[in-house]
């Protein structure tokens, strides 16, 4: 009763899919985030790759990429965000750990301790020096993206927190009190 009387806040027709709910419905946010997304992802990869010599690395790159995706979730809603980047983030996180772990194995094959580094003798153009630590860092990058994004999606898709399609449920207390 209380809920129905309230006018829906900011619910302008959006470009997100029907029955999807942006967390904050704003044309400016949508436009900016659409433009920013590829840039942020590129930046995150740049951060990842330059990490060995300059500030950056897998953690920072992963967090950057995750914030780019979370920006999509906030601006367009989880369904649209999933459609734009159709990735299973749980699997991505698991794969990241696996991918990070396997690059410790080549050393063992050679009879050295696990995770002893191997490097290619010559740098690869555009990537830089390539070695097992860099590949391991990619595993870190993927894990961080997967974990962070998946937690955000889990929270946003939690029906108690965000019952579709309404954006903000009236607080439980007022219902009890009425």
């Amino acid at each position: 009763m209380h809920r129905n009387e309230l006018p829906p806040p900011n619910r302008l027709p959006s470009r997100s899919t029907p029955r999807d709910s942006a967390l904050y419905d704003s044309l400016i946010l949508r436009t900016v985030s659409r433009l920013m997304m590829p840039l942020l992802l590129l930046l995150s990869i740049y951060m990842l790759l330059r990490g060995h010599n300059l500030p950056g690395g897998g953690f920072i790159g992963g967090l950057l990429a995750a914030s780019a995706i979370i920006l999509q979730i906030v601006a367009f809603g989880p369904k649209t965000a999933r459609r734009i980047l159709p990735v299973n983030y749980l699997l991505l996180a698991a794969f990241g750990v696996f991918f990070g772990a396997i690059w410790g194995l080549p050393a063992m094959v050679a009879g050295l301790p696990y995770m002893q580094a191997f490097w290619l003798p010559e740098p690869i153009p555009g990537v830089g020096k390539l070695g097992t630590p860099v590949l391991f860092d990619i595993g870190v990058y993927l894990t961080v993206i997967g974990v962070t994004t998946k937690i955000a999606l889990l929270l946003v898709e939690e029906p108690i927190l965000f019952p579709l399609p309404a954006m903000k449920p009236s607080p439980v207390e007022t219902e009890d009190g009425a």
Partner: protein
Amino acid sequence: MLYPLVLIALAAAPFALVARFAGRDRIAWGLALIPLAIFGLTLAQAGPVWEGGQVVERIAWVPALGLNLSFTLDGLSLLFALIITGIGTLIVGYAGHYLANDSGLGRFLAYMMLFMGAMLGLVLAGNVLTMFVFWELTSVTSYLLIGYKHDYADARRGALHSLLVTAGGGLALLVGLLLLGQAAGSYELSDILAAGDVLRAHALYPAAVILILLGCFTKSAQIPFHFWLPGAMQAPTPASAFLHSATMVKAGVYLMARLSPALGGTALWDVTLAVVGGATMTFAAIVAMRQFDLKAMLAYTTISMLGALTMQIGLGGKYGAEGVATNILAHALYKSALFMLAGVIDHECGTRDLRRLGGLRAYMPQTMVVTALALLSFGGIPVMFGFVAKELMLEAALETDLGATLSLLAVAAIAVTAVAYLVTGWRLFSNTFLGQRSMAAMQQHITDPTPGMLIGPGVPAVLSLLIPLAFLGPISGLIGPASAAIYGKPLEVKLALWHGVNTALLVSLGAIAVGAGLARFGEQLANLRGWPAWSRGDMIFDRLIERTLAGATALTRTIQEGRLRRYILLTALAMLVFVGVPFVSFGLGEIRFSLDPQLQFYEILAAALIPIGVIATINARTRLGAIIAVSVVGAMVALLFVLFSAPDLSLTQLLIEVLSTVFLLLVFSVLPVRFENFSAAWVRRRDAIVASLVGIMMTGLVLATATNDAFAPLAPFFLENSLEKGKGANVVNVILVDFRGFDTLGEITVLFIALLGIYGLLRLRQGKDDVAPERVTTAEPAAEPVDTQR
């Protein structure tokens, strides 16, 4: 090459699973070729052992921990290995007949092979840590075998008891072995055995002995841990015959015998073993006499014999060592035969209750003859192998160094046990084969089993007669090196049936006479008012398990009662007690604090904004306000990182700050905009005090670690080696992915596990909502009958 012996048995396990598809008894006998082959391979390598030497083999496994996969074949190992594989051959073949109609035969045989490999590893291990690994494997495989009929509650209970008791003892043993290794300076058995004098004088000696004996006593079912063995009789009979009479339960005896040259010779070791062993032997023999279940009867006589072996190790001396070796072999032969025969009777008659059996002599003559042979050896009747073994046991008691009192007590205990064995044996035989044909025998057509099934019990039973008559010479060659290993010095052994008229013979004959007299009254003895139920011990153990679980539940309810505030409070208090108190007691002096004179005003400003942000957070009226105030703190920390040249940390901090603000907004969006106060004033005051104390403690800790120079700083190493060895100029990242890459791997694993936790928390709770209605509907009809009964 000793390790292939173990490897073959372990590798055979998967192949055993084919028994599901092929002709069952034939495939079992085919599989029996595997233990037979190991038997042959062991003999083929035993050359040096006959001359009193040993075969040693060492493979580095984890050299840093002193953990070698080393194997040793000496007299004692050889005796055990031959028993394991020899009896194993017969039992695997026998199992094919016994479980011919059981769909799980393949699984059963696979467990048996695994067990055999573990047991071989245990007796061949030349390193106590290697041995411990196999020791635990035998506990696990035994658990699987006892619980084989897992749809029976009794089988599950028996399996659980045996696992809890033996694995619990295993924990004590592990600590004991570690102490032993510390004291001896090596985990290699050969080093430990050579360090006997050092060990006995070492401060750790009493603790090590007590812990090791705990492990041995639980494994070998000595009082008061004996109760798990009768419960283990829930295992299919072939497993009982193999594990719980011939092999596994003797692991404890094996270890005690193995270590006695190094640890024995002190009152602690000798008297404990003699007394506990003697008590177990006598008590279990008397209890066995009064059983009505064939297998329970055999189980108690097994406990009794394990006690006898333990006692002989304690009694020590030349005869003690000889007696242990001889009795192990004699017991393995007649007891495995008896167990397999109990299985035959159970299989043919459908019961093994003595009150329902009887008069089988007309229907199962072959079985009767074999049983008679095995029982004669069990009763220690002259010319049987059991008699030879018993004479040595009496000699050990008469010749012991432990004093006249213990010697006399031991002789008396052996005499009482011998009498009880005779009564038990007679009761078993007469109630099964003699007398009236029972109801059970009336109801079905009963015959001797197929010859194949009698091979299993037949071979060891016949050997019990043939060895003393014809093969005492070659067997002495096997017993000799084994006794020498127990004695710790070379030993000349010549087993003989006839030692002339001596005290041992007289005691033995006296016991036989009394036993023969009492045997007539066997049933009256069995029906005397029983021991109180608690004497079995398993009820007490059940109660103990219940209490432990209830205690754990109560503790969990107190600590984890479900409110986040409580968790935080308890965690903070625990930190104050376990970190704060030691820090205040020992660490305060480590703080060397002085203000840097070059501190800039903007650095002070950034630092000052942090407490201001904290205070603003605490005092915020709305949730949004609190989030913003918290992010001020984060932003200032990031700024400080920039000022103190840590760009990587600063970047990470900023990104984390952004993301946690988003997460907080997501979660808080369903909560009321404003904070409400529900806590009482004193609760808030308490929380404030605890929080402040934790804050002060952490500040102190950080100051102490940052200003402490007790350890050489690591930074120069990383700075010097980052570019050269890590091939990167960004030292922070090189540390993360290379120098300390293993830590990072651990961190991302933790991150992923945290995600799984959150996933479970949110998704499972959603699932629960769907299931809940169903639960209600199923619960209702069940509730009704209870009400009507009331």
